[in-house]
């Protein structure tokens, strides 16, 4: 949405403001159900696929429906797909599509849209889909309401990609001829419960109810306003003063969450993140000779006080990590070598490793106060164990650039585990994902053929018991090798007013739940 320059000048003061600028709340409108949510940073785009940042996906999931939804136990639920089946050899997936569904522009939704979405559109935009489509031989629309995927190798994680975390379904009639190498300037058109009404940059995004939504009686909310508020303290204050009713996970500083939770009529939930399962750890750069020494890597793991970190910095909204897998990831096992905090042991390991006091550069994540404190605490812990650590300062683009180009010794990251080890975990540890240019692949540079093999087999193994065994083995190896400095499993709290019910009803939370939420 571009703002007409003349209008901007003529109504410059009127358009000003980053909060509810000029939103008319007439008497009639006040009768309607309005949900005000804080959002930051501003999405880069609201067209599915192009909108790739976290906040973008949060809004996009409510504009575009997907084939499936996943509940909090990661069990698949119907959405645009009413039934689905997998062949015994796990090489054929058949989806029956819902009938009578319409796009926001009135055109009918058919199997051709699904085929276009996977075969062409998301292959370009979504790395996870691109990888999955690598196993797919063909995707066809057998009839206007049936889609069949034929794989040449089994890919057990296939179904986990069918929800708002990876594959919003886009309209073929709108995007078939678009040049995907250029930014998309079309308005977002989906089949979701909300339509985009207005986007005032720097101020708010206004979604309105899709009156033709394919689920009768939904959505119960008429209007959703996403308020772009750049400052964490301002977001908390906006919530407190009643101007905003929901603070999604990650938008409020944790001590504010603790304070807001005590207010009457306020609830805090950590639900809605089961699929993403954000996992924070320290990348150790395996190209640095220091980190090629196993004892030194073990010393790093023993030096860090994870419980204190979870308590003091994350105010309890984090769980100390116990190994390379997040405890919520399927096939997690606790039977791996543990590294409890032991400063004395860390010192001893450092000595045995022959550490001579070389400076280690720590690159923090510039995502706000909490991450700055994390960096300070890690530096403190490591210094107490005898390391010499220097914090490097970089802004967000600089940090991403350095991580993508392996220009660091130790750096922070948090990665979404995405509901299946083949999809969320493998890319962090396999040799094929060692490529410059992305901060989300195997940035650390660890390379172990056995691990590569185990992950590759796990991605293809249809039998769950055998899969579990494969992943148990890989976890044991990664833990023994102290590949990375696993820190915390993050439990982002969503703060909301109790008048909002059913705010979170899926494993990706607000991202695709607003259609089923309601306000009293």
């Amino acid at each position, binding site marked *: 949405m571009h703002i007409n320059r003349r209008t901007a000048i003529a109504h410059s003061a009127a358009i000003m403001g*980053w909060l509810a600028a000029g939103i008319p709340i007439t008497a009639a409108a006040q009768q309607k159900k309005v949900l005000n949510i804080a959002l930051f940073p*501003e999405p880069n785009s609201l067209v599915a696929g192009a909108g790739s940042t976290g906040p973008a996906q949060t809004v996009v999931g409510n504009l575009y429906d997907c084939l499936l939804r996943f509940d909090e136990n990661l069990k698949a639920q119907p959405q645009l797909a009413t039934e689905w089946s997998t062949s015994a050899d796990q090489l054929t997936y058949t989806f029956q599509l819902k009938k009578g569904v319409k796009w926001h522009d009135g055109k009918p939704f058919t199997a051709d849209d699904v085929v276009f979405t996977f075969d062409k559109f998301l292959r370009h935009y979504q790395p996870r889909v691109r990888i999955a489509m690598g196993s797919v031989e063909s995707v066809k629309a057998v009839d206007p309401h049936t889609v069949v995927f034929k794989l040449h190798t089994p890919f057990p994680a296939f179904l986990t990609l069918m929800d708002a975390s990876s594959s919003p379904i886009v309209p073929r009639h709108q995007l078939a001829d678009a040049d995907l190498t250029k930014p998309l300037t079309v308005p977002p058109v989906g089949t979701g419960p909300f339509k985009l009404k207005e986007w005032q*940059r720097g101020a708010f995004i206004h979604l309105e109810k899709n009156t033709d939504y394919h689920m009768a009686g939904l959505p119960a909310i008429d209007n959703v306003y996403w308020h772009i508020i750049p400052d964490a303290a301002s977001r908390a204050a906006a919530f407190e003063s009643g101007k905003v009713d929901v603070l999604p996970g990650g938008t409020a500083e944790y001590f504010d969450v603790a304070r807001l939770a005590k207010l009457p009529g306020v609830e805090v939930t950590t639900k809605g993140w089961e699929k993403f399962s954000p996992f924070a750890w320290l990348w150790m750069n395996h190209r640095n000779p220091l980190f090629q020494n196993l004892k030194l890597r073990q010393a790093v793991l023993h030096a860090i006080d994870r419980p204190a970190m979870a308590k003091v910095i994350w105010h309890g909204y984090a769980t100390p990590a116990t190994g390379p897998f997040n405890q919520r990831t399927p096939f997690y096992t606790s039977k791996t070598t543990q590294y409890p905090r032991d400063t004395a042991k860390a010192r001893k390991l450092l000595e045995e490793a022959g550490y001579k006091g070389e400076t280690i550069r720590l690159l923090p994540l510039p995502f706000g106060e909490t991450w700055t404190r994390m960096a300070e605490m890690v530096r403190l812990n490591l210094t107490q164990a005898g390391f010499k650590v220097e914090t490097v300062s970089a*802004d967000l683009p*600089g940090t991403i650039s350095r*991580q993508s180009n392996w220009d660091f010794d130790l750096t922070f990251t948090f990665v979404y585990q995405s509901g299946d080890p083949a999809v969320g975990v493998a890319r962090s540890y396999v040799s094929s994902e060692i490529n410059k240019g992305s901060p989300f692949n195997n940035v650390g540079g660890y390379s172990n053929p056995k691990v590569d093999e185990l992950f590759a087999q796990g991605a293809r193994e249809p039998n769950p018991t055998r899969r579990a065994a494969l992943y148990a083995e890989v976890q044991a190896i990664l833990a023994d090798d102290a590949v990375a400095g696993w820190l915390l499993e993050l439990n982002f709290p969503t703060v909301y007013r109790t008048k909002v019910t059913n705010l979170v009803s899926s494993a990706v939370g607000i991202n695709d739940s607003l259609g089923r939420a309601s306000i009293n």
Partner: protein
Amino acid sequence: MDKLAFIARRLLQGLAALLLIAVMNFMLVRAAPGDPATVMAGESGAADEVFLQQLRERFDLDKPLPAQLATYLGQLARLDLGTSYRQQAPVLDLILERLPATLLLTGSAFLLSLAMGVALGVWASTQVGTWKDSAISVLATLFYATPLYWLALLAVLVFAVWLPWLPAFGYQTVGGGHEGVARWLDIGHHLILPTLVLSMFYMAIYARMTRASMLEVASQDFVKTARAKGLPPGRVLRAHVLRNALLPVVTLAGLQAGAMVGGAVLIETVFAWPGIGRLLFDALTQRDYSLLLGTFLVTAALAVAFNVITDLVYTLVDPRIELS
């Protein structure tokens, strides 16, 4: 004719300064470590060579520097400040959206600090030797030394948290839905604290300068002559001393106005005031090159504009000044 020539020359000087600032700005940002394309692509997690090359082409990053500079200057001449990659909107639009808020804030602070500062300074100059005069001097020195952002935080603490009289941040009440006059009142309500804080520092400067200037002028011969002629002291004060004493103060104010725009970054940060100071900072942290260049250029342009205007006003107002 002389004056016109002077005006023309001064304006040209201003434009030349702007041009040089634009070039320097351009060089600076390109000198930054890191390949802009990788940075932009890496954020969306989709960084493969094809996409990187597209980004480079789109933002002309693969051409040699002089060609990039030529393109940039050509665009500037057409008042095209480029497009912000991150916000997917023309930079000029983004800046124009935020400019009024900054002008409102700095304009108010400028007027307030000048008015109050001069008033205090004039009054202090009539109270020389008394404790009142010393008190004003001390307070002025104190405010001059206090960090602006700390004063802002203290103001928020006292007037918005402990005594909830004024809003702690923002331009308007969220979801307040005010229209017309009510809206302007709401904005004004939010304007009070940031303006007060921004004015304090400059008020101190103007108060001290006015006092010193008043005393200096008052001791000059022509004033003594006026008094000797028997004119009442009040009229002497107003008619002669004030007008002459104010000139250096006004000059200083004009120069400071430019600095004020730059310093608005701090106030806008603390008070979450949606102006271009904050936009500049956001563009920096996001390494949004087009936005960064555009915002810094506009900020510098405002400062240069204020300087030029001040020079012109000063020379036009004071007939004794020779145009050189």
